[in-house]
């Protein structure tokens, strides 16, 4: 034993130990520098909102690929960690707990939709996270959480944002509408939109002749539309999810409901599959939207390149082939987050939030500046009218002229055809 531990041998052992420690210490340091920045989220990949959730995911993935091509964030590649929330709010707490505690993600964003953002906000507040919501309507009204931001261009008064353009346009028409029918689904977004619409009805001095809700899984909408028709309203404001939007519009044509204006807050009409299936039935509908291939919007730097990439990958991904509704905003959400990380040179949640609050961001949907409640400082919910649609071809929707922007004025691309019946001819 004494012989074995002779002096040269001891030196060799010491040298080996030093080298081993050096390698051990240096190895992880080198790996840490190349460790990806993990961004986690739940997303509606199945269930009722998946028709939007999957295109949103594709947009986020395109952003990740674009960023990684340019060397990542802070010199580190970006990795996405996401789970299917099944459009079920009950899954959200579990998903984000796993993302934060097991997957150890560095940053989180919300999934798509008001219902899925609602259960995330308390978690974000408890853990002091910075969260950018993906199309949540008025989620932060009760909490006023300062580190919550929202990419939907609802503006400082999100409750009325969906409907404001509809009622402002109505007020400018001749003859001016006097009566209104309000109808909406019993679900979070439509109910928020209905609250805003009722407020605007008062503001614009209209008389409500019908104000009812319906269950989201209603099969036949003709009795509802017939009851609305019996009240003979001048304008009809509808707050609905995609299947109901289709049902309401078809029923309106079957029953012959022709108010002076029809539409407002109908989710789904802007989906490519719905537009191509509904075809000319869409003509005349005045509805909220966030994007249309109209000249004022297509002039925003970067959006053409993004849409080209999105449309090239959409078919393989089995998602909306045009992507004119949510995808540009999902990409913009990631641009905001990425720019904030780069500017703060780190992943500190509070610093990122402070930067987002104080900065105007250049994105593919235009300049974004957030206000006090985390919403866009200035709202930009569009009001569009479907015009001159014929047949069911998809190509007619690629260019301008079919979804004409009427509101706000800075993005206006055409004039309203009024009353509704005139657009049906």
């Amino acid at each position, binding site marked *: 034993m004494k012989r074995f531990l002779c002096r040269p041998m001891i030196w060799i052992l010491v040298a080996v130990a030093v080298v081993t420690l050096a390698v051990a210490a240096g190895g992880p340091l080198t790996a840490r520098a190349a460790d990806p920045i993990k961004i986690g989220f739940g997303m509606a*990949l*199945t269930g*009722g909102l998946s028709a939007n959730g999957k295109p949103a995911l594709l947009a986020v993935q395109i952003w990740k690929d674009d960023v990684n091509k340019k060397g990542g964030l802070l010199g580190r590649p970006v990795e996405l960690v996401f789970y299917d929330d099944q459009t079920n709010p009950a899954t959200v707490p579990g998903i984000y707990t796993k993302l934060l505690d097991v997957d150890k993600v560095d940053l989180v964003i919300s999934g798509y939709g008001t219902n899925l953002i609602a259960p995330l906000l308390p978690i974000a507040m408890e853990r002091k996270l910075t969260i950018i919501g993906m199309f949540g309507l008025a989620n932060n009204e009760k909490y006023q959480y300062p580190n919550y931001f929202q990419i939907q261009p609802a503006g400082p008064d999100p409750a009325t944002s969906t409907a404001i353009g509809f009622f402002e346009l109505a007020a400018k028409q001749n003859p001016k509408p006097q009566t209104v029918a309000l109808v909406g689904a019993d679900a979070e977004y439509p109910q928020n939109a209905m609250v805003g619409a009722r407020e605007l009805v008062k503001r614009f001095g209209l008389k409500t002749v019908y104000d009812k809700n319906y269950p989201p899984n*209603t099969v*036949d909408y*003709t009795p509802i539309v017939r*009851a609305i028709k019996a009240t003979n309203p001048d304008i009809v404001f509808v707050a609905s999810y995609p299947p109901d939007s289709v049902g309401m519009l078809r029923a309106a044509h*079957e029953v012959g409901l022709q108010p002076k204006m029809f539409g407002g807050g109908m989710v789904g009409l802007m989906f490519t599959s719905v537009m191509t299936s509904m075809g000319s039935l869409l003509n005349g509908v005045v509805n909220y939207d966030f994007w249309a291939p109209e000249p004022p919007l297509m002039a925003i730097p970067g959006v053409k390149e993004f849409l080209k990439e999105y449309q090239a990958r959409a078919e393989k991904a*089995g998602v909306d082939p045009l992507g004119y509704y949510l995808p540009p905003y999902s990409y913009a959400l990631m641009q905001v987050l990425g720019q904030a990380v780069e500017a703060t040179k780190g992943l500190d949640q509070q610093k990122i939030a402070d930067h987002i609050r104080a900065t105007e961001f250049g994105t593919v949907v235009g300049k974004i500046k957030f206000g006090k409640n985390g919403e866009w400082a200035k709202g930009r919910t569009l009001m569009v009218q479907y015009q001159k649609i014929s047949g069911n071809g998809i190509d007619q929707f690629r260019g301008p002229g079919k979804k004409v922007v009427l509101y706000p004025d800075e993005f206006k691309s055409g004039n309203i055809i009024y009353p509704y019946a005139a657009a049906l001819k």
Partner: protein
Amino acid sequence: MFSWDLLANAVVAGLLLGGFYAAVSLGVGLIFGLLDIANIAQPAFVILGAYAAYVMNGTYGLDPILTGILFTPVFYLIGAAVYRVYYGSFERRGEESLRGLVFFFGILFIIEVSLSLKFGVDYRLVQAPYIGKSIDLGGVGIAYRYLVPCVVGLAMTLALYAFLGRTFYGRAIMAVSQDRLALRLMGADPIQIKTIAFGIGIAAASLAGALLITIAPVIPSTDRDYIGRMFAITVLGGMGSIGGTLVAAIMLGVIESLMSTFFGPSWSQAVSFGVLLLVLAVRPAGLFGR
């Protein structure tokens, strides 16, 4: 807001809706009502039928209802195969109650996920000359996209009613639900009879799916909207009663329509299910159950 015109329209719309509900619920009436198999995957087969109609409509321009009819043999074979697996794995071992339920849950999710992977999650609709058009009969508007499913639903009910009452296999299906041993003593194989019945139930789903997609857009998870209605109609009509299924479907359709028209659509389903509870309280076996 009451008017006779509105009332007439509401009743007609309810009758049309009821005819469609009957078509969607027939398979459950047969499989759950007569065979006592809680096939909760039935709505998923309906959606599978809807996607078959969508594919044939989009690819070959085939009428969705015609597709539904053409695909019934395919769905019959799928149904027969599913029952054989279910029988071999669970029923034969007497484990059909809970494990069988899990088996059908599994099938439901497999169908839903497979459709999501193949077709994505976009809303799918079909084109047909009768969609979006309506006729006016003395002030009563009838939308063709409800009229056609209603007529087909009534035809399906009549056909199944006649099959069960007037054919050897039909009577054997009625018998297997009552006394399996007695049926065996009469020289019929209960397993074969149940295989046929299950196959017919799934074939009915093919046609019901085609009707569904003519009425409304579908996504793979649309099946969840129908699970409650289908089983409620079967129970309300009386387990095993095909005529009862039709009556219950029309009842729910008319109640929903009347409530939507006169009291607000929010009440429609609450009142429908309230009626279900009331009927079950008075007649636990359902309207025409024994």
